[in-house]
């Protein structure tokens, strides 16, 4: 097989991996601070891409902004909308349901996702159909033999990697990150140490959801097309990546995201004809991995009180 094609596929895998990781990190963050799975996460991704589309489109039309500025406006709108959605969902749904059975919380956040999705479908003009996403990044190509890749894709991958690394540094190096980890470790002790738990929880929701919304923008820029229901599968993939990697750690979801993307890419490379089977194989691998590593590849550390 041509080395260029392999490199091309590797790059595609890297691209998907970055996006999946950004979504998966959110699941891990929420699970850390509140022991909940926020299943509306995939629809926050959609919300991000639609906010970016709207903001970039409107500001571009009103002020004739250059693409770079329109892009920044779009990104800011996406991250803002995502963070706001995260805070609202956390405040009115997840925190009040803290004591409820986990199935109730799961269902509540899934339904919140449905509300978001339907609101986008009904609220956006002609929202039921896929929407073209403007090309806001420079459009040159980098060629090396049979390997060719758009400059826009390279920028997306670099930005994504930077953001994932940045989130990791934020959680491990800053004061707020310290309080997130403290609440995740033991919320009672954290409260005794004077940490405002609600602030930390809502901050975490804003952080994770903002990341997801950013991932939504990246998807729009990469595929040049977004639709109201693209978040469903992305949410499941993000959740699967986080769980397979290990919900308790921050590196786990990143590993899981790249693993999922790797399996998908591998299926496409190995069986080019039946590339439609990539999700089938990827999810089968996920089920097998759960059987092999019942609490994720980076195992959750917990002790059982008997």
């Amino acid at each position, binding site marked *: 097989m041509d080395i260029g094609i392999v490199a091309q596929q590797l790059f595609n895998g890297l691209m998907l991996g970055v996006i999946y990781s950004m979504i998966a990190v959110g699941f891990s963050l929420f699970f850390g601070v509140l022991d909940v799975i926020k299943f509306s996460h995939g629809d926050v991704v959609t919300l991000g891409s639609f906010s970016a589309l709207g903001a970039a489109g409107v500001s571009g039309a009103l002020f004739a902004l250059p693409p770079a500025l329109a892009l920044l406006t779009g990104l800011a709108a996406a991250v803002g909308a995502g963070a706001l959605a995260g805070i609202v969902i956390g405040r009115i749904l997840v925190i009040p349901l803290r004591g409820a059975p986990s199935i109730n919380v799961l269902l509540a956040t899934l339904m919140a996702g449905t509300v978001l999705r339907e609101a986008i479908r009904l609220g956006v003009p002609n929202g039921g159909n896929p929407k073209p996403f403007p090309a806001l990044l420079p459009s040159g190509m980098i060629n090396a033999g049979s390997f060719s890749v758009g400059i826009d894709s390279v920028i997306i991958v670099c930005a994504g990697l930077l953001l994932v690394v940045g989130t990791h540094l934020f959680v491990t190096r800053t004061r707020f990150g310290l309080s997130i980890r403290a609440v995740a470790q033991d919320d009672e002790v954290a409260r005794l140490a004077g940490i405002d738990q609600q602030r930390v929880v809502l901050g975490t929701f804003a952080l994770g959801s903002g990341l997801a919304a950013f991932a939504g923008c990246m998807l729009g820029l990469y595929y040049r097309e977004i639709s109201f229901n693209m978040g469903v599968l992305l949410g499941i993939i993000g959740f699967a990546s986080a769980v397979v990697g290990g919900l308790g750690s921050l590196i786990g979801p990143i590993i899981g995201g790249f693993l999922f993307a790797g399996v998908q890419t591998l299926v496409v490379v190995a069986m080019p004809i039946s590339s439609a089977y990539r999700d*089938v194989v990827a*999810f089968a691998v996920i089920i097998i991995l759960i059987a092999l590593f019942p609490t994720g590849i980076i195992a959750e550390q917990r002790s059982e009180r008997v």
Partner: protein
Amino acid sequence: MQNSAANGCDMSSLSSPAPSLSVPGIRRHPRALVAAVVALLFSGGGVMMHAESQPVVLALLAAFVLAFGVSDRTQIGREIAATCGDYRGVANGMALLCALILIVLFHADHYALLMLSTVAIFSTACIALNLQLAFAGIANFAGAAFFVVGSYTAALVTAYTTVPRTFAPLIGAIVTGAIGLVLLLPVLRTRGHYAALVTIAFGVLLRTWLEVNDVLGGPQGLKIGSFSIMGLDFARLKQIGPWSVSFYLPYATLSVCMFGLVFILVRRLENSWVGIALDVVRSDETAAAVFGLSIRLWKVVGFVLGNAIIGMAGALYGMMNGFVTPNGASLGDSLLMLSIVVLGGIGNLWGSVVAALIILEVPEKLQSIQEFRLLLFALLVLVILLFRPGGILPRPVRDLSRFIDGAPK
């Protein structure tokens, strides 16, 4: 104790063993009252299935909410509800009778009979989900996927084998149960969200696979032959004696009977030592292990049995509709089933029926909200989860005090 075991139906009622009733009418004719209440509820459901005009549907909904409020908030309402709980045998028998009367009344009305069968079949599947979620403690996020597996099995049985079609639902049950058993291996090794992922992943996997492979018809799905029993082909039945009847009449009868059988089975399980074992395993695995209960065994029993019932219901639903497509296997449909269970009240079998009726039927009837259907549905679920976390009819707490010697019966 002998008596109570023979009755079998009133063990887990919430009310105190000897309810002190303040309203004389209830005390004098409890059975008549229970029968009247059930008949009233079913006639309401029947009118709902038959209703054409939106004001009637809205009025019925308002009446339902009012009746629910009365039974929940007022003294007499609570007493009537408690009496219904105490005379479950009368209530359940009357329910079966009412369902059959509705079928006779609707004998030529395709649409009403289709609705009735759909509610009965989905209620059956949701009772099975209850068995898995509320009793065995395994959240099945692939309910619709297993339902569709049952339909596909029925399609293959009717198309490629000479097996009598009467057995198609049974084969659907066996196949679905077997798949559930395989899927349970990873579930048993883990817990909580990790276990939830397995069923979610299976649902997505199955749906994608059904869509991309050509053997099972791809996105178009498959045709399914009609059900037949002892040479009576359900698709050909147009006439019974002098009456011309709807094609759906035999399916409605069959699905109500299937619901009845599954209801009795699951209720018996709940009230037997199996139900107690499942409750213990679910609520505290450590304690269950200390008392020598096999956690794996009981989870396998609950999950596989539940899956088999879902598969059977799916096969019958497929045979009634005549076709199956991968669309029905989506995560959204599985969530719809799970929402019915949670909305009705986790563990309450009649609660699932009430929720199934509301969720399957109201959107069909209110055409004007068709566009906003999903949005309103999601908001409704959120409101109920926030303000009534136990569901519409919460599961009564198991009350074993009447087994203690000397306790009042």
